[in-house]
């Protein structure tokens, strides 16, 4: 039913269509055709993915600074990283961003999807309107707008002050500026919402009717039917949103005026990687950082996949 399940099983499970063709003659020709059709992807994979991955793994253990030829330094980059307060800070900032932003975004997406799923009147319109921010959220324009809206004396400050909680502008305030970025990602809840909505539409109505006959209230219905039924979609959203959040760059760079400050408060991981790699030319160190990011993302993915056995329900007999 979902991408993820599909992905996991793709390697193992023979497809009905595949078995049908397997026994036919002309298999060799299919191999040739297959690889011919695949050739752009294979070239791309080798030149732009696999090759660079090998190279960056190598750089990670060298002192490469663009000017010298890389010299092997063993684990130096990694030990330096763990001792580096700015690296620690960037990890802290990124984790906070992911841990606060992603759940908020998904909760809002799910909440609004549930709301929209209740009525058909106006649904298409709202769905489209709520989705729009996801398309423009990544643009530099919105970064500028965000900086303005969260400045001293702008709408957010005035609203907050109106409720008696004066903070001033968020963008200059090291304690608040990260929430400005969190707000920006939450604002783009439309994309996961659309996926939730599609998932909700696939929940068979009979299940609700049966539950109603058993006297279940809305909460029970949500907990016992909706949530399990959409758990694959939820899993998909959690996985993709988390992975994306770890890689935030543009919005932090633009909102913080390219410095990822103040006081490194928006120094997200990729921003520090950029500074080390492209500003200080510490390509070895930056490559080591990139591999740590890869490991972190892989770890999170693995944990999510492991945990899905406990809470993700796949329909029996889904293809």
């Amino acid at each position, binding site marked *: *039913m*979902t*991408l993820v399940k599909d*992905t996991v099983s*793709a*390697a*193992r499970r023979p497809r009905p269509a*595949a078995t049908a*063709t*397997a026994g036919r003659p002309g298999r060799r020709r*299919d191999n040739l055709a*297959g*690889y011919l*059709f*695949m050739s*752009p*992807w294979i070239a*791309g*994979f080798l030149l*732009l*993915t696999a090759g660079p*991955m090998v190279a*960056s793994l190598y750089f990670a253990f060298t002192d490469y600074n663009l000017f010298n030829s890389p010299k092997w330094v063993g684990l130096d980059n990694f030990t330096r990283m763990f001792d580096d307060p700015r690296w620690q800070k960037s990890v802290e900032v990124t984790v906070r961003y992911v841990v606060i932003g992603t759940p908020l975004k998904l909760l809002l997406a799910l909440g609004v999807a549930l*709301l*929209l*799923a*209740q*009525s058909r009147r106006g649904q298409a319109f*709202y*769905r489209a309107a709520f*989705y*729009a*921010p996801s398309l423009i959220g990544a*643009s*530099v*324009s*919105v970064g*500028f707008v965000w900086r*303005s809206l969260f400045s*001293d004396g702008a*709408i957010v400050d*005035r609203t907050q002050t109106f409720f008696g909680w004066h903070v001033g502008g968020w963008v200059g305030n090291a304690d608040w500026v990260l929430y400005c970025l969190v707000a920006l990602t939450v*604002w783009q809840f439309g994309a996961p919402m*659309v*996926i939730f909505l*599609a998932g909700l539409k*696939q929940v068979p109505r009979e299940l609700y009717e049966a539950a109603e006959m058993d006297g279940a209230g809305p909460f029970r219905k949500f907990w016992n039917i909706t949530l399990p039924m959409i758990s694959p*979609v939820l899993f998909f959203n959690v996985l993709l949103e988390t*992975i994306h959040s770890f*890689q935030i*760059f*543009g919005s932090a*760079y*633009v909102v913080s005026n390219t410095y990822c400050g103040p006081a490194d408060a928006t120094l997200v991981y990729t921003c520090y990687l950029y500074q080390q*790699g492209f500003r200080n030319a510490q*390509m070895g160190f*930056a490559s080591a950082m*990139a591999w740590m990011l*890869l490991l972190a*993302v892989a770890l999170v993915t693995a944990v999510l996949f492991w945990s899905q056995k406990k809470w993700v329900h796949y329909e029996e007999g889904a293809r």
Partner: protein
Amino acid sequence: MSATTTTKPPVLGRRRTGSLAWHLGALLVLAIILYPVVWVVGASFKPSKDIVNSLTLFPSHPILANFKGLADGIADIRVWTFFQNSLLYAGGAVVGVLVSCSLTAYAFARILFAGRNLLFSLMIGTLLLPYHVLLIPQYVMFQKLGLVNTYVPLLVGKYLATEAFFVFLMVQFMRNLPRELDEAARLDGCGHLRTYWSIVLPLCRPALITSAIFTFINAWNDFMGPLIYLNEPGKYTVSLGLMMFRDSDGVAANYGGMIAMSLVALLPVLLFFLAFQRYLIDGMATSGLKG
């Protein structure tokens, strides 16, 4: 698409009050969501000094100075140049993604060949791979090849099907096309190329359109790629051109011009959205669901 046509949603709040609350809630979310967009429209007609601090959405005396300033360009570069560059980049990306991803998807979905499943897993794996691992070696490679400050590093991946998301989208779509079509084509003596071109591609139009629009918008919004690879202001895309309005060395930015440029930069995406929102949303929805 089948995902949208299955069962009806649970109908709960049928009563008037429920319906009213529903619309109120939806409108409230709508107001918050759209505020920044409406704000930028209004702000672009305000003098620079009022942009941040004036709370009125639309100025009582709208001015056109910000837009007139755009017509003069920035640093002897016409604003239109940035748009041309972005169009070139986005257009080139669309062509590349359509061709390379559909070929790859056809192989995955319609041809049986040794190692297909392994390659498919690898392809999906790249979907989850953080781009930053590739960033530095790719940069070093393109630099050694003398391709920095060209569009090659930005586009080459699009022509080599590295956009796994779109490959995946098309694979999903092609798998749902009836097998019998291929069989019939084969009986008529069509090779894979003919089958791909005359039968599968035309039927995949929705997936192709979705991929094309997403590719266009992604390229239009792309910031990190141009930031790293482009050096000459004359080659800048809209994203980088926009940064020029903000940037200052000595004199602070032209705030009004920056906001006006922000709006103008958003317009193509918003127009695309209005024209094709169905394709976008359905495409998005099917990425999480298989029909």
